[in-house]
């Protein structure tokens, strides 16, 4: 896909994963229990107003072109998302799961990936797919009901979308165990939501990863809701702290700050690649749209909440930074706007022109070696279909 730039490479910060320190206090029962109310600080390199700030542990040094490339990513994936939502409204898609508001979390994470890394998405990682070079139309095909994801997960190093909550986190750990066992240089990046942290599978993934020191980074987009349920229905304490119970580092990053997400994810991936095992990243963000186009968020959240988060919009923030720091001018933004519109038009026409799948395909890939029984069903089906088209042509 020509629209997608190469990942931006940088030297990595010195490895932050030294020997662990144990913060046990003298009162054993309270040793490591967080307050349920207190919100921890999150790693931030860009304020909501677009001001570049430093963080004692995380830094990043990007050229203007690199920051522009990130802006372009953010803008284009949002534009595709808006178009897909519109296409759903017009009946072209069965459903759409919008990433609105989560662009920085996804682009920051996606751009931290190196070619050997493997990503394991949920159903919402359109931004990560973009970074992996997946044509947005492949994503749309799934929501249109043409397939379950038409990209090649091995080639693209981007696994299939996974709808069963949490299942893919174990796949990521298993794949990472495979990397440990062959010549793999990469690490796995496993995506999941705040709600997913309640699933047994996700917790088992933490255990397997920790026990086997698997090169995997767990990337949780805490968008504050699992459909209608607020984060309080899943946890008493901030989610990044879950990792501490399993013996590996957890960190919260401002999920609407693409620079911070990029810096934090890079470092965690590098730690994984260099044999230090898993890290949990909690990207603190907000689902600005509905859960999916079938959802009605007005039933469970207040408009005022949305207003507050609008001020933290990940794209406005980067735009403000680019402008404020003089790294981009109006021409740049105009060009991106034009490119977005072009892309949206391509997505729209591509969707309309997308051929329906061949019915017989449902039989073809059930097995690598089809069974005689299924072959019989397929042949009966084909004969039955042929009967109809005979009828049609005779009519």
């Amino acid at each position, binding site marked *: 896909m020509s629209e997608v730039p190469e990942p931006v490479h940088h030297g990595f910060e010195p490895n932050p994963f030294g020997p662990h320190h144990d913060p046990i206090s003298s009162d054993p029962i309270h040793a490591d229990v967080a307050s349920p109310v207190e919100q921890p600080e999150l790693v931030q390199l860009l304020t909501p107003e677009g001001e570049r700030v430093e963080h004692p542990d995380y830094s990043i040094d990007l050229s203007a072109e690199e920051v522009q490339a990130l802006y372009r990513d953010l803008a284009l994936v949002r534009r595709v998302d808006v178009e897909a939502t519109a296409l759903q409204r017009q009946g072209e898609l069965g*459903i759409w799961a919008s990433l609105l508001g989560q662009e920085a979390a996804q682009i920051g994470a996606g751009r931290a990936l190196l070619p050997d890394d493997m990503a394991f998405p949920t159903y919402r990682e359109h931004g990560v797919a973009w970074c992996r070079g997946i044509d947005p139309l492949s994503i749309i095909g799934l929501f249109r009901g043409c397939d379950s994801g038409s990209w090649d997960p091995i080639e693209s190093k981007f696994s299939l979308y996974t709808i*069963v909550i949490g299942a893919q986190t174990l796949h990521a750990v298993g794949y990472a165990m495979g990397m440990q066992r062959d010549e793999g240089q990469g690490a796995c990046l496993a995506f999941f939501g705040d709600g997913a942290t309640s699933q047994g599978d996700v917790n088992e993934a933490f255990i397997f990863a920790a026990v086997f020191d698997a090169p995997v980074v767990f990337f949780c987009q805490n968008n504050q809701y699992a459909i209608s*349920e607020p984060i309080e229905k*899943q946890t008493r304490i901030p989610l990044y702290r879950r990792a501490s119970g399993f013996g590996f580092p957890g960190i919260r990053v401002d999920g609407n700050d693409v620079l911070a997400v990029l810096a934090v994810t890079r470092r965690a991936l590098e730690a994984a690649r260099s044999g230090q095992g898993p890290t949990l990243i909690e990207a603190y963000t907000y689902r600005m749209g509905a859960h999916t186009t079938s959802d009605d968020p007005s039933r469970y959240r207040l408009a005022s909440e949305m207003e507050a988060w609008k001020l933290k919009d990940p794209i406005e923030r980067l735009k403000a930074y680019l402008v404020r720091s003089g790294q981009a001018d109006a021409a740049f933004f105009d060009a991106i706007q034009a490119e977005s519109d072009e892309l949206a038009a391509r997505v729209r026409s591509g969707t309309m022109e997308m051929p329906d*799948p061949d019915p017989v395909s449902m*039989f073809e890939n059930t097995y690598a070696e089809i069974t005689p029984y*299924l072959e019989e069903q397929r042949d009966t089906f084909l004969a039955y279909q042929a009967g109809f088209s005979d009828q049609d042509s005779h009519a």
Partner: protein
Amino acid sequence: MSTSPVTLGKALNMGLRKAMEDDAKVLLMGEDIGKLGGVFRVTDGLQKDFGEDRVIDTPLAESGILGTAVGLAMRGFRPVVEIQFDGFVYPAYDQIVCQVAKLHARSRGRLPMSIVIRIPFGGGIGAVEHHSESPEAYFAHTAGLKVVACSNPVDAYWMIQQAIAHPDPIVFFEPKRRYWEKAELDTEATPEPLFASRLVREGSQVTVLAYGPMVKTALQAASAAEEEGISVEVLDLRTISPLDMGPVLASVRRTGRCVVVHEAPSNLGLGAELSARITEACFYELEAPVLRVGGYDTPYPPSKLEEDYLPDLDRVLEAVDRSLAF
């Protein structure tokens, strides 16, 4: 006058409300069933009226939901669990098959296990994968569970109440693509028993057995057959485990022919069991083998292909013709 037209989803909602009013031990549990009222709005308004302690938005963990429901049932509550979609029941499979199904037997009858597991099932709504499955055979093969499916608003209203009042664990299948279909509901009528099948259309030549969403399809096929001069009898099974074989066998003895229709894959679907039992009981009366119209033995396909995958009027008619040709 208590009759009014309601959708199947609304009828379930009314049934749940009535059950909660009648018995303070009835609790609802599930994902997004509170403020949202469930993704299909079946629990709409119930948390508002009965409080968060009785309509419980749970963490996103199906095994956790069923496992805690078991504990609540042990304590004498009657949890009614909503599984958001058919394809998401499997994380809870262990708790259902090893605990819910067995605890009455394991405790020699001492532990009450009055749990209803509501599952919207089947396809036809254009959904993405895991949202259109028909897993009823997995539960029907499990001793200790009972399994029912409603097909229309009237049954939905009564059956959900009867299931909740029943002492055994019941997997309650709701035909999701029929949630929006309406019927007149008389809330003061006397309901039929829960574990009874019902003759829904009389006919003389072929018996068609269906349940849940396929009852309507079977009835449509029967109407179409009539136009071709073929008389089809249709039974709504309603109860999948135990099967209510009395009316089934009586019908097949009359017609001598039988077609079973379900959306679930054919291999080891309910059609297999019905075929085996009918053939054993009516060996000399059958004019043709029991024929099955089911989903194909493939994963449920992308929604653009679901019309090809799902049994429809034509496939039922085709089987009726094949049966008559024997």
